[in-house]
């Protein structure tokens, strides 16, 4: 009798993971603060997201350490932005075992193509420069500045999580549905706020060229001081050309970013009379302020509208 009870108990324990909600959290590692936030919304309690790139770190200059690679190799899912944002992805894929699914979220979005020479220095180039990229196009990697792309990212993550953890399918689907509703509301709010700025005054002068998707979505022109990468430094000729543009277009304000030193922008404001409009978050979330994707977008939009209205 006791043996039968014990056998039934063991059988129940063996069946438990397949008949209900899995008690084990899906281990996820993330190479971007934005991806970390989206993953937490989509995964909820069913996932444990370990951020490899944390707030305050410039992702353009980031290289994963041996410890970071080990953390990612121990995860079941690794999330990357893609579109050339992480130039080390090829090497990383080799380092991760077959048990780890590398999800390049940016592969699912519709990319904005830009002049490849702007991307030359930091993104996706493993070879020595011996040639020019003039005339070539490459994707702008900052896809998260379009809310529509973030909706696509949420669905991509949902599908990846379900593939690795089918037992929590219902939870991932419900979480994603709720998050998409929040993103719809965010998108509407952004449109209503941006409508306050006359279209001819929608000119963004920013530290580096990270707001292309935002500009495309809401009819802005972007004039970056630096190129796509934060490591590029503008020449004096480029700065002079920018100053002339700011004066000609009567640009009211220019914007720094959370990571870069706004020194060059301060010099430009002195020459043009445009004021420093505030700090925008471009490459990732903030540590205290703009700590979630929604907060980041609301902060950026409010800053822009206040400065340009």
């Amino acid at each position, binding site marked *: 009798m006791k043996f039968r009870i014990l056998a039934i108990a063991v059988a129940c324990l063996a069946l438990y993971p397949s008949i209900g909600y899995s008690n084990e959290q899906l281990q996820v590692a993330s190479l971007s603060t934005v991806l970390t936030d989206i993953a937490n919304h989509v995964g909820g309690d069913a996932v444990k997201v370990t951020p490899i790139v944390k707030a305050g770190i410039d992702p353009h200059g980031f290289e994963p350490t041996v410890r970071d690679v080990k953390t990612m190799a121990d995860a079941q899912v690794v999330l990357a932005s893609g579109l050339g944002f992480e130039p080390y992805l090829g090497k990383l894929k080799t380092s991760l075992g077959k048990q780890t699914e590398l999800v390049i979220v940016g592969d699912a979005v519709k990319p904005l193509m830009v002049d490849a020479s702007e991307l030359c220095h930091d993104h996706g180039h493993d070879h020595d420069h011996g040639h020019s990229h003039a005339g070539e196009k490459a994707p702008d990697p900052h896809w998260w500045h379009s809310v529509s792309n973030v909706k696509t990212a949420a669905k991509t993550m949902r599908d990846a999580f379900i593939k690795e953890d089918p037992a929590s399918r219902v939870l991932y689907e419900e979480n994603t549905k709720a998050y998409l509703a929040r993103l719809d509301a965010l998108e*509407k709010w952004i449109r*209503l706020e*941006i*409508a306050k700025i*006359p*279209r*001819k005054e929608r000119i963004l002068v920013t530290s580096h060229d990270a707001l292309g998707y935002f500009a495309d979505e809401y*009819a802005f022109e972007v004039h970056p001081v630096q190129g796509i990468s934060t490591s590029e430094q503008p020449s004096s000729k480029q700065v002079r050309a920018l100053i002339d543009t700011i004066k000609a277009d009567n640009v009211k304000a220019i914007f720094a970013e959370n990571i870069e030193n706004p020194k060059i922008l301060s010099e430009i404001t002195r020459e043009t009379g445009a004021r420093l409009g505030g700090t925008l978050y471009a490459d990732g979330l903030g540590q205290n302020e703009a700590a979630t994707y929604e907060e980041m977008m609301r902060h950026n939009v409010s800053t822009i509208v206040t400065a340009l*209205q």
Partner: protein
Amino acid sequence: MTGNPLLRFAILALALCGMGFLIAGLTKRPPSEPLVSTEVIPKDDPSGAEAQELVIRFDSPAVPSALIIESEGAEIAQVNASTFGEPLHVPLHIPAEGLDLVVRASWNDESSKSHALRIRINLPTDSEIDTTLWGNASIADVITIPGKEPR
């Protein structure tokens, strides 16, 4: 003026306050009343270009209790229940880059949770924008009027 400095200060302060109240009273805006007609005063266009006219028609199963149109952060028209079915003539300066109008409507009708508002806009170019906004007790959305050089 001779005399106690404190007294002099107090008299001066009272005089300034009195002037302040007078100025505030003269510059106080009278309470706004809902427009009965749909007359709109266009904003001055620095380029000196003449205003163009949009003709806007609204349609909804339930007439909204409030309906306003904004442009560049300012209210440019307000429609009340009695004129809801009539075309709204809106003189506007439409820049080459285009113009974003914001339409805000709200309903006090508690019997229905969902509302729809159809908006048809006849443009100066003889083309038409025809769109329907959906929402619950309130609706707000942006309608873009294209310009000659859209951005």
